[in-house]
């Protein structure tokens, strides 16, 4: 069997004494979209944030088990957090551009990682904006504030900002929850385009969204992985009763 891009094994996660994840084992395949679905508070975001170690910032957080990316345990003692987070980027629930110009938003990552000289930055900005389909709209106002953009444009900009640091994995934490249906459809289309270059893990409340974009889906409930499989199987012939209840809306 092929090794996944990300291998999660026996993952337990605690906020202080509260156990947010219980024995989660999951394989995430390269250049495919894996959706994590489940009701609020089931640990979806926590699981996602284990993959780029954003949970490290939380006091009292503790983790057991292993997460391997390309065969390397990211919780190992020799791991370089900076390299990890450059490789595993994140898109947040609310579009969160910095209150600076569009250009500077995208240049932020490359400048920090010294990926490019000052002269090469405009190229990176253009490439990143093209990758998210914003270049034609924004090429004449790169020095304008990123906050002047619509919510959907802001979220695309955040994805472009991420792409500029050349990641391999994109973690998306309910990237459309602050957007209207039209904007959501555009972001979903973008995700499908990005799939050929990046491994994408998306957390979503929206089951239709998971069904539309993902190749694999994991259903999480109360910190436990209830079912994991190919999206079309999980949504048409779920193996577990709980999964069926949730996806058919008979939940709770």
């Amino acid at each position, binding site marked *: 069997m092929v090794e996944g891009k990300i291998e999660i094994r026996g993952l337990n996660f605690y906020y202080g004494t509260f156990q947010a994840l219980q024995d989660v084992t999951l394989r995430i395949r390269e250049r495919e979209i894996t959706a994590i679905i489940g009701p609020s508070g089931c640990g979806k975001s926590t699981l996602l944030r284990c993959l*780029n170690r*954003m949970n490290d*910032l939380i006091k009292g957080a503790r983790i057991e088990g292993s997460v391997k990316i390309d065969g390397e345990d990211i919780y190992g003692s020799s791991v370089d*957090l*900076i*390299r*990890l*987070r*450059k490789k595993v*980027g*994140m898109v*947040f629930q*609310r579009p*969160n551009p*910095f*209150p*600076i110009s569009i250009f500077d938003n995208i240049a*932020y*990552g490359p*400048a*920090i*990682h010294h990926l490019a000289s000052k002269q090469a930055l405009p190229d990176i900005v253009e490439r990143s904006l093209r990758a998210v389909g914003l270049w034609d709209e924004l090429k004449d106002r790169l020095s304008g*504030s990123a*906050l002047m953009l619509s919510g959907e444009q802001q979220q695309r900009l*955040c994805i472009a*900002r*991420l792409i500029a*640091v050349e990641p391999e994995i994109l973690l998306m934490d309910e990237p459309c929850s602050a957007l209207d249906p039209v904007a959501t459809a555009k972001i979903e289309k973008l995700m499908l385009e990005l799939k050929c270059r990046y491994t994408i893990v998306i957390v979503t409340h929206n089951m239709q969204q998971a069904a539309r974009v993902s190749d694999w889906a994991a259903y999480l409930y109360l910190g436990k992985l209830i079912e994991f499989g190919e999206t079309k199987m999980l949504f048409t012939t779920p193996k577990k009763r709980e999964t069926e209840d949730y996806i058919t809306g008979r939940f709770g």
Partner: protein
Amino acid sequence: MNQLMNPRRTEKIVFFFLLLSTLVVVLPVILVVGIIVVRGSSVLSWEFLTALPRMGMKAGGIFPAIFGTFCLVVGTVVFALPVGIFSAIYLSEYSKRGRLTRLIELAIVNLAGVPSVVYGLFGLGFFVVFLNFGASILAGSLTLAVMSLPVIITASREALQAVPKSFREVSYSLGATKWQTIRHAVLPHALPGILTGTILSLSRAAGETAPILFTVAAFYLPKLPKSVFDQAMALPYHLYVLSTQVPNVKLELQYGTALVLVALAVLMNIVGIVIRSYFRTKKQW
């Protein structure tokens, strides 16, 4: 009984006392500024602002005092601003929240309440005598800097903590180090608040007499300082001297000096307010 408890009457009485208290607060400010302006503006002239004092300060201008205060303010900025900002960054971003940090924060808050004459004595003992700077602009600036630090640190910490958490999160998620995050994603957005707090504390430092009394201020020195190791005249101390130490000074000279001092403080406060409102209109998170 019913009459007394009438809510409409209560409303009027409450309103009256609230208004009265506010007037009591505002009135002295108006009177002080008004009297100073009325009585001091007659001596204001280009000569008064730019000439050296003459005849034992009974005539001539106050330029050395203005220049001295200017030097002290610049010196205070040079010493207090970097240290203040750096320690605020350490306290708000780096330090572990423990008993020691809380103790340090408590000490800083309390330092802000220490009477300024105590800082003056400290400056005399430490900078003038122990470090052997003598009474000099250097010693005076350092003393004023030490006095200003608690306010600058407190204002800076508040400004840093007001920067949304999401900026830090995004920066870390892009693989930035802690210092890169602070330097590029936090500090630029905290700077307006830091500057406002600093300017307000400087305007206080510019007007203080006690801290400079033993550390820099010259009684009567009708020439400009040549280096930071020289003594200098300063506006607040000059005003004190004119008012109490020199007999038969024209009252207008005292009020004129006070007017310049007040104008300086008001000017600095206005700059602080303008900076703050400018950035407030730009800020959109």
